[in-house]
């Protein structure tokens, strides 16, 4: 029973990791850009939800309804300006630029909101949980986040496989130049992919704020987990990212069960083992998306 609880808690947190990571995976798959500011964007979304949306008289619980679309828009604009400029220069510039962005964001947040931890206020809901057996508690918030993660990944998968725009995204991910030759404006497609990445990570950032506390520096460690989820699951496979996130979450919970200090270590060990045995990831393919 105790092990069942460990697995359940791991799956719950794994859903969050997958939600956090799917945008990273998409950005890498389509733009071939590793967005080192990915985690910080989530944190910014958290701060916007906590400090800015109350001005609009929107309860913090519902803040994502406003924040997510805004971040999608921001993602499109940032891609078409800053990131596209660095892609045009050379691929390594994107690493420097997104890393720089990450540093700027962290320090701006520290300057404006201090290093205090914040969380998204969801009232009583935070303490409520489903208690199916003696020692198993399933937090409603975590369960909700897992459900949202599965829904987002499912919708994203449908979008990519069934819609014209999704098809274009896959075409550009496969071969940017050939897509251009077929008449596709790849910069616009890049913008759409970035918009999806920013929107989903904003959602993840708010979800994080509901589950626990965040501070200006929370982006980095979550980015690491997102990387691990993507690599364990296999780059370019959305369901792989979900499985990767869950595998990472379960490994962390197993580690934590023995000693709380082993939590992150256990996740990293799983990550290294997967890299050593199956470098393309559990569900990875040789090439990109869906």
């Amino acid at each position: 029973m105790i092990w069942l609880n460990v697995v359940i808690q791991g799956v719950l947190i794994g859903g969050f990791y997958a939600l956090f990571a799917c945008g990273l995976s998409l950005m890498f798959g389509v733009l071939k850009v590793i967005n080192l500011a990915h985690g910080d964007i989530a944190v910014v979304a958290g701060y916007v939800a906590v400090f800015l949306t109350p001005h609009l008289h929107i309860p913090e619980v519902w803040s994502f309804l406003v924040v997510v679309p805004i971040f999608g828009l921001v993602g499109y604009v940032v891609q078409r300006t800053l990131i596209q400029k660095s892609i045009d220069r050379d691929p390594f510039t994107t690493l420097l630029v997104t890393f720089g962005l990450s540093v700027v964001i962290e320090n701006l947040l520290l300057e404006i909101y201090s290093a205090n931890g914040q969380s998204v206020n969801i009232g009583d809901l935070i303490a409520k949980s489903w208690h199916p057996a003696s020692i198993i508690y399933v937090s409603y918030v975590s369960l909700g986040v897992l459900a949202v993660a599965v829904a987002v990944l499912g919708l994203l998968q449908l979008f990519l496989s069934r819609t014209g725009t999704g098809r274009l995204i896959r075409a550009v991910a496969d071969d940017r130049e050939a897509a251009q030759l077929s008449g596709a404006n790849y910069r616009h497609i890049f913008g759409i992919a970035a918009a999806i990445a920013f929107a989903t990570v904003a959602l993840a950032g708010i979800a994080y704020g509901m589950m626990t506390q965040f501070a200006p520096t929370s982006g980095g460690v979550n980015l690491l987990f997102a990387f691990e989820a993507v690599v364990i699951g296999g780059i370019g496979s959305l369901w792989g990212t979900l499985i990767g996130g869950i595998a990472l979450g379960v490994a962390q919970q197993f580690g934590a069960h023995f000693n709380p200090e082993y939590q992150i270590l256990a996740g990293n060990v799983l990550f290294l083992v997967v890299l050593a045995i199956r470098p393309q990831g559990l569900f990875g393919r040789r090439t990109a998306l869906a």
Partner: protein
Amino acid sequence: MSLLQLEDISKKFGQVVVGEGITFQLEQGDAVGIVGPNGAGKTSLFAMISGDIAPDSGAILFDGHNIAHLSPAKRARAGIGRTYQVPRPFENMTVFENALVAAQQGARTRGQKSYDLALGALERTGLAPFANRQAGSLTLLHRKRLELARALSTAPRVLLLDEIAGGLTDLEVNELTAIIRSLRSDGIAVVWIEHVVRALLTTVERLLCLASGVVVADGEPKSVLASDAVRSVYLGGRVLETRGPNE
């Protein structure tokens, strides 16, 4: 007014000259072959027409409009189709999806029209039975056909074919040239780079020979192949009559 007009196009990569004063015109329904040794600048010429690389100087007019500032995507939409020498299908998509992307983006069609256009291109190139196969699983012949089908799906007015017969068997080449000949009757102008000269001669009515970025011969295929300029290019002659001593 010519359909496609290149005026005095020049391009250098460092010291390597891939284009020097290239000038030629193309009319609707023309079929022009381009031959020349490796490194003559044939593929670079296509890349300049399709917009992948920008010429250092000169003008490219399509249907009377200067297209030098247009992106490759806009040129594709305007009616310039191109196939790659080494086929580059969208490997993780089906054959039909490959053509569909081109029909929607290149030809700016929607809904049923896109489906008809894409399916028509697949039927024309004999790929219809493979429509639902992953493009990455195709053989070389079918990859080459898919390059052609994808270019056709953009509803081109000019089709730039880059060594589409290379690496194929005689029988396969014959099938392909039959398809290409049928395009001309639709009014599509074809420019075809090819080392398989025999295939070219069955299809084109005009031949250009390119060497070191210079058009050394342009005219009726047989007389071009017989010309001294082309002979000296292929037999290793370095001195070309069309180039002055200081160039």
